[in-house]
């Protein structure tokens, strides 16, 4: 019993150990790298075959090759070799002769030096030096003779060596000519060998000077920094980085790594975790063009770099007047770009206004005003407040009565003055000003008349020009436009004396910050929403997810990125616990993505890039010149 238990448990432990080793060994990235190596091998092999084929069909190469082969044959022939050997032996002997001759001369010369010393010493003792001088003269003549012998030996050696070289000259010239032509083949053959020998290994980029970055992305994205994989036929994971010269050469990958721009978990070698769209990873990878959000980390302006998507987001943020409620560092506060409401009661039909406040898209599908999360009662309250407090006495001319017989003339004036280059009628025309196809249900004729005569008297900063219409022309246009009714507008009764409802409306308008776009009685403009600078670095615990932590169907995850994206696209996504105030701008997916890119980019002072990475133009004037050029 005990023995059996021992055997079973030991076998199981052995199996478990093998399994642990296998689980540790069998890594996802190895499969990617092996696949890439195979692709690169096939590619190089194909290149080599092509090259060989082209060489084979090249007549020039054929000629060189045959000449080289012939000369090589001659060079390797026994006859030639024998001669060469003989010559080489002779050279060895001559070299020895030269050595001996030079040695002898050197010896004689040093003996002469010793004699010089003796002569000087004997002379200083006052004795006779004659015999010594005679001996030296004898040596001098001997030395000259020896030098001559050495020079002769050298000459002979040189001439012999030259003759050997001459005999090989033709062969060597042909050889280098052939090798020149063949070197590419050789290179490719060596490359193939290298690919075959290449081990599977983690390729990482270490950048200590940039916050100790360790990026292992190129463990799987092996082709990213290699030329020749641009083609879409290669799997996306292996393709060369788009615009490699700019992004991996100018921004040298050895100095930047990958994550500083793309984000994600650079240390990980598992696909999901590395890309970072997993629980607890703070900075998941940017998707597609959203990576442009990173440019602004180092480039303090994006005007002079090709960050088009980021700039598109910036433009959308400006045109959508986000700064009316949100502060963004470096951006001016928002404009009051909506029409003023201080005289609204002389303009608007109460039923229309309730409908509009509830959702502007009912009346104008392309409305510039976003949709606030307001119920119908809220809209009624706001309408009550606005209409009961605003001035109903607008306009130089009172009580304008449209005359339907003037309508055809009005239509002509409308066309002649070019009104439809800004205003559409039931979708026909430009989309600068609002569509006038249902205008009669919105405004009254008196207001419309006075507005056409002088728009700036009602809305001082309106972009609608004063077209200088005469009274009769204006009346004609009004008469024509008054025929454009919205038959299905739901009728609402508004009690303008209901003070309680008006107060509720005022409070709602304060909460939803209406006054930051519209000038309204008793309300002040101001930014009431969270600052967006550094939103990309904001702690995840500071976002109010409500109950929407995980809902893959709606693209909701407990991630900062997911929150920001969804808040831009559908602000109501997080309204199930605390009702948010942000209105919906009806951005398309692409627009949302662009705005998201901009918001993720404007990190203000919160980013952590070392100073020497910040892009500094060589001098400011120069960069101004460049910008002017564009």
């Amino acid at each position, binding site marked *: 019993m*005990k023995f059996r238990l021992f055997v079973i*448990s030991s076998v*199981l*432990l052995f199996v478990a150990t093998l399994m*642990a080793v296998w689980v540790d060994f069998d890594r996802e990235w190895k499969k990617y790298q092996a696949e890439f190596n195979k692709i690169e091998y096939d590619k190089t092999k194909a290149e080599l075959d092509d090259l060989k084929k082209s060489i084979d069909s090249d007549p020039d190469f054929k000629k060189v090759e045959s000449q080289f082969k012939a000369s090589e044959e001659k060079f390797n022939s026994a006859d030639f070799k024998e001669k060469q050997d003989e010559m080489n032996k002779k050279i060895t002997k001559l070299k020895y002769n030269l050595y001996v001759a030079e040695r002898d001369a050197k010896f004689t010369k040093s003996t002469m030096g010793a004699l010089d010393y003796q002569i000087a010493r004997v002379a200083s003792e006052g004795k006779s030096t004659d015999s010594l001088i005679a001996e030296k003269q004898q040596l001098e003549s001997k030395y000259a003779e020896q030098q001559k012998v050495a020079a002769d030996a050298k000459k002979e050696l040189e001439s012999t060596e030259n003759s050997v070289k001459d005999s090989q000259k033709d062969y060597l010239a042909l050889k280098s000519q052939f090798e020149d032509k063949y070197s590419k083949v050789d290179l490719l053959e060596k490359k193939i060998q290298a690919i075959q020998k290449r081990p599977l290994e983690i390729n990482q980029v270490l950048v200590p000077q940039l916050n100790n970055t360790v990026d292992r992305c190129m463990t799987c994205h092996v082709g990213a920094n290699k030329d020749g994989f641009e083609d879409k036929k290669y799997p996306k994971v292996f393709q060369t980085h788009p615009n490699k010269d700019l992004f991996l050469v100018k921004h040298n990958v050895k100095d930047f790594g990958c994550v500083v721009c793309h984000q994600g978990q650079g240390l990980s070698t598992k696909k999901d975790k590395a890309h970072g769209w997993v629980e607890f990873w703070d900075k998941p990878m940017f998707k597609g063009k959203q990576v442009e959000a990173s440019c602004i980390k180092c480039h303090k302006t994006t005007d002079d770099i090709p960050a088009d998507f980021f700039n598109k987001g910036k433009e959308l943020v400006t045109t959508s007047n986000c700064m009316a409620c949100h502060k963004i560092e470096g951006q001016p506060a928002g404009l009051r770009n909506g029409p003023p409401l201080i005289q609204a009661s002389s303009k608007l039909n109460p039923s229309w206004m309730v409908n509009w406040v509830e959702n502007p898209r009912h009346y104008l599908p392309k409305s510039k005003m976003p949709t606030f999360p307001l119920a119908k009662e809220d809209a009624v309250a706001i309408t009550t407040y606005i209409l009961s407090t605003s001035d109903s006495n607008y306009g130089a001319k009172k009580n304008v009565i449209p005359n339907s017989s003037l309508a055809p003339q009005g239509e002509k004036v409308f066309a002649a003055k070019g009104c439809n280059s800004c205003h559409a009628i039931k979708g026909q025309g430009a989309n600068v000003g609002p569509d006038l196809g249902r205008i009669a249900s919105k405004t009254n004729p008196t207001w419309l008349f006075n507005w056409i005569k002088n728009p700036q008297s009602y809305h001082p900063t309106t972009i609608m020009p004063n077209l200088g219409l005469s009274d009769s022309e204006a009346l004609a246009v009004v008469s024509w436009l008054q025929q454009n009714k919205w038959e299905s507008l739901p009728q609402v009764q508004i009690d303008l004396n209901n003070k309680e409802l008006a107060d509720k409306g005022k409070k709602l308008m304060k909460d939803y910050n209406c006054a930051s776009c519209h000038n309204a009685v008793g309300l002040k403009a101001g930014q009431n929403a969270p600052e967006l600078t550094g939103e990309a670095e904001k*702690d995840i615990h500071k976002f109010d997810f409500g109950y929407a932590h995980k809902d893959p169907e709606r693209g909701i995850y407990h991630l900062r990125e997911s929150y920001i994206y969804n808040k831009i696209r559908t602000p109501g996504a997080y309204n199930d616990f605390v009702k948010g105030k942000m209105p919906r701008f009806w951005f398309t997916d692409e627009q949302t993505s662009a705005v998201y890119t901009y918001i993720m980019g404007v990190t203000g002072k919160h980013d952590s890039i070392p100073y020497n990475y910040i892009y500094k133009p060589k001098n400011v004037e120069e960069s101004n010149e460049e910008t002017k050029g564009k």
Partner: protein
Amino acid sequence: MYSFSNFLEIITKPDNIPIILLIGMLIAYTWISFKKAFYNDKKLLQGEPVWEGEPHNQEKVHTWPHLLSIEFIVAIIFMLGLTVWSTFLNAPLEEPANPGVTPNPSKAPWYFLGLQEMLVYFDPWIAGVVLPTIIIIGLVAIPYIDTNPKGNGYYCWRDRKFAISVFMFGWLLWMVLIIEGTFLRGPGWNFFMFGEYWDVHKVVPLVNVNLSELLNIDPKTPWLLREIPALILLGIYFGVIPLIVAKLNKKFFDDLGLIRYSVTIVLLLLLMSLPIKMVLRWVLNLKYVLVTPWFNI
């Protein structure tokens, strides 16, 4: 709010697996020890030798190979379990640590969850310092308090009812607190039933009052005056109850002697103070019995 998937999510968290194992082992070992104890009880009643005294258990064998071989097999099985566990269950890592953010729920290591649970009912000074010290001192003191010679060399329930009951009570209380802390305490250290969604927004009315407030005493009264009822109550708890017990169970008192009896009964009352305080908190929302300028009980 309640769903099986919530339940499953919490019990399968990698850091909760040891607690699941703990529950299983707790039941298994309690069952085994009581089974053996009851077996011996039966034998003692019949006047037969206990299990340890049975002839075949009186035989002596050598440690090697008889014991060591069993231990070796156990070691292999243990290694097997650890290998499989560490291969397939990853370490429960969360987001990079941020000194500015406290995780919610913020939990102690599992073996300290009992202490953390005690912090709900007691002053940190009492729950974090005094009671743990007394627990350790009390455990050290057991051999000097319990001089009952019965049960030496064998294990039974009949002869050591008091000792086993007190130990099992304290032990199970501790285990229950750990299990509760692991599975039933969620965000905000709020109580969540099995299967309830761990909602970070959950709001629980936790307005607790001191004993003096329950008795409608003005909190501005000087503390010694204000706490007179509390002092009387504590005096009864630690002074009168031991007297009553000694009177009722004269034999118990005589067996132990005055000093040993005093130490035993005080340790026992301290042990009981935790469940009593828990019940008082649940029933009366009692915050502290005694509030002094230095410490609260």
